[in-house]
């Protein structure tokens, strides 16, 4: 890497930082030093990778989607994060956090969830490592991701409904942080994306970068021309982009275009937001003229978030990654298309990235494109069926 970020203040250029209530500051400072020490400890790193191999099923394969490739005139490779245990990349992060909680002697974890994938991954790590777990989830998401709610409960986790705001991911994060303020002495906050106050964006990046590192080693001497990932909070995209950031490979992050970027109903924080502080971090966010955070919209609960990780904000301003959007309708089409043509039902989140590739096929002609298929779509089947697709 040419740059080593974040700096000591948790800044990625002007982004990031630590805008947290004082009650949490000592825990954030402790977490920063515990993480630094753990990540330099071979035993810790070894255990993390052993669990990823034996329990999670890593490395995840790279699959050449020949049917789609033929149709698109593009060589399309899928990095199969959907094949991780529990069905998404989220578990790479929760295993790491679970080990950190144990190292800090904290018997209890809390987490937020949107699509329920991070909640399930948190519940799974908690079950595996013998931790108590509580997951905050917006009431709207509880409705559209009912299957994952039941999975969490089966795993022994308590799901706490959050009815403030729009009852989606933003509200779940806020409520988890509020809960953390009163329980911080015994509880670790297992945040689900590269968001939040420093050191969370750093820690989640480090636990997710295994995706990009694997991709590089799996491809040997060969290099893709383009790598595409969906961006909600930005963890799967960060995981695959970070090890490639200086590689010259074109990196594309796809945000939720919702009902269209000409409307206010989208989740395109990088494309259409402006810098501000959300959930403890300076980043691009959706807000009105008075700095009031605006509600996001996406058909996919995991992209329905008005902010994004601060390092993505930095990548955008430095021109290191290009951020694009795909709408609800395009994502639904891509969801059905991948299911029918390749026998892979993708998460609606991941379908946004595929939708962008499909739309851009002409300009990608002849290129090798890697899609980070962040998760599988079982959780979305009920919601999509209800839409009559």
């Amino acid at each position: 890497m040419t740059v080593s970020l974040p700096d000591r203040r948790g800044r990625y250029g002007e982004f990031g930082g630590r805008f947290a209530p004082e009650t949490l500051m000592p825990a954030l400072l402790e977490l920063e030093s515990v993480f630094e020490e753990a990540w330099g400890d071979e035993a810790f790193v070894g255990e993390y990778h052993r669990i990823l191999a034996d329990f999670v099923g890593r490395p995840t394969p790279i699959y050449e989607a020949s049917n789609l490739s033929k149709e698109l005139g593009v060589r399309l490779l899928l990095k199969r994060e959907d094949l991780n245990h529990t069905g998404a990349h989220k578990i790479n992060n929760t295993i790491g956090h679970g080990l950190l909680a144990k190292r800090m002697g904290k018997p209890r974890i809390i987490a937020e969830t949107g699509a329920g994938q991070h909640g399930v991954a948190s519940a799974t790590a908690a079950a595996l490592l013998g931790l108590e777990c509580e997951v905050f989830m917006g009431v709207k998401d509880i409705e559209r991701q009912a299957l994952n709610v039941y999975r969490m409960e089966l795993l022994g986790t308590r799901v706490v409904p959050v009815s403030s705001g729009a009852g989606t991911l933003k509200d779940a994060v806020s409520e988890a942080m509020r809960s953390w303020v009163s329980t911080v002495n015994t509880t670790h906050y297992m945040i689900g994306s590269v968001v939040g106050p420093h050191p969370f964006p750093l820690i989640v990046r480090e636990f997710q970068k295994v995706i990009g590192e694997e991709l590089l080693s799996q491809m040997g001497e060969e290099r893709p021309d383009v790598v595409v990932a969906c961006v909600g909070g930005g963890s799967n995209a960060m995981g695959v982009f970070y090890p490639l950031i200086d590689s010259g490979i074109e990196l594309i992050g796809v945000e939720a275009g919702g009902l269209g970027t000409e409307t206010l109903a989208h989740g395109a924080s990088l494309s259409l937001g402006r810098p501000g502080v959300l959930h403890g971090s300076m980043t691009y966010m959706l807000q009105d003229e008075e700095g009031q955070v605006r509600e996001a919209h996406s058909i996919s609960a995991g992209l329905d978030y008005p902010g994004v990780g601060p390092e993505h904000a930095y990548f955008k301003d430095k021109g290191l990654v290009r951020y694009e959007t795909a709408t609800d309708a395009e994502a639904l089409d891509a969801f059905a298309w991948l299911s029918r043509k390749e026998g892979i039902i993708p998460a609606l989140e991941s379908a946004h990235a595929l939708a962008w590739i499909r739309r851009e096929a002409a300009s990608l002609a002849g290129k090798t494109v890697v899609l980070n298929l962040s998760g599988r779509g079982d959780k979305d089947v009920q919601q999509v069926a209800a839409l009559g697709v």
Partner: protein
Amino acid sequence: MFSRWPHLGFNGLKEAFASARAEGRAVFMPFLTAGLPSIETSVDRFVAMAAAGADAFEVGIPYADPLMDGPTIQKASELARERGMTMSLGIDLVRSVASETDKPVIVMTYVNPVLSMGIDHFMGSVATAGAAGVIIADLPFEESAPFSAAAAGHDIGLALFVAPTTPEQRVREIAASNPAFIYGVAEMGVTGERADAGHHIDALIRLVRSISQVPIVLGVGISTPDQAAEAAKLADGVIVGSAIVRIVLEQPDDLEALTTTVSSLAAAVHG
């Protein structure tokens, strides 16, 4: 403008703390969300609280994502915004409260509305409106420098926080930075009413006292006269928020319910 209301601004707050210290009592500072029960009648609630014994006020500018607030103030913020409260109307309210009550007014908000307005513009605007100081709930010591500098430039105070979790060395650093005043977070958790008055922060407050002259106000989780009296033994000021906001939410037209509560809290704080 300041000469018309000699007690306003930061000096007014300093005087309030100084005279309370001299008299061996604490300053009672109720909190109310701007725009409750309505945009037009908010100021009346502050005037009534002044008559009932409040020494200073915290005016909350409602924010869409109030991370440090429990259900009562969340609800209040949502309602106030629905009723049309904005930053500029909030600053208008600060001006009215300051001029009509002649008491120090502290503006309570979150980082993002301040950034959105521009830190210096915000501090200048609230100072011109007659505010004495600013509390920003999600602004820790590490990120506070540009905010403190702008506040000082407009001659108003910015609070820094000390919480039950703050280690001793950190308390020393925060006190040594000489903030306008210290907001001691009395309880672990967000704003709200608690049955048990904890003493989680007593030792840290004594530490601040032993090393600096910085005034200390206690808030979060203080809702009953007993709790307020306990806090007043320790601190220069006591903030009560949720208990007051709840009355305005539940009995929006009952001024007497508000003044009864405020009088008993004020009596408890004044000892």
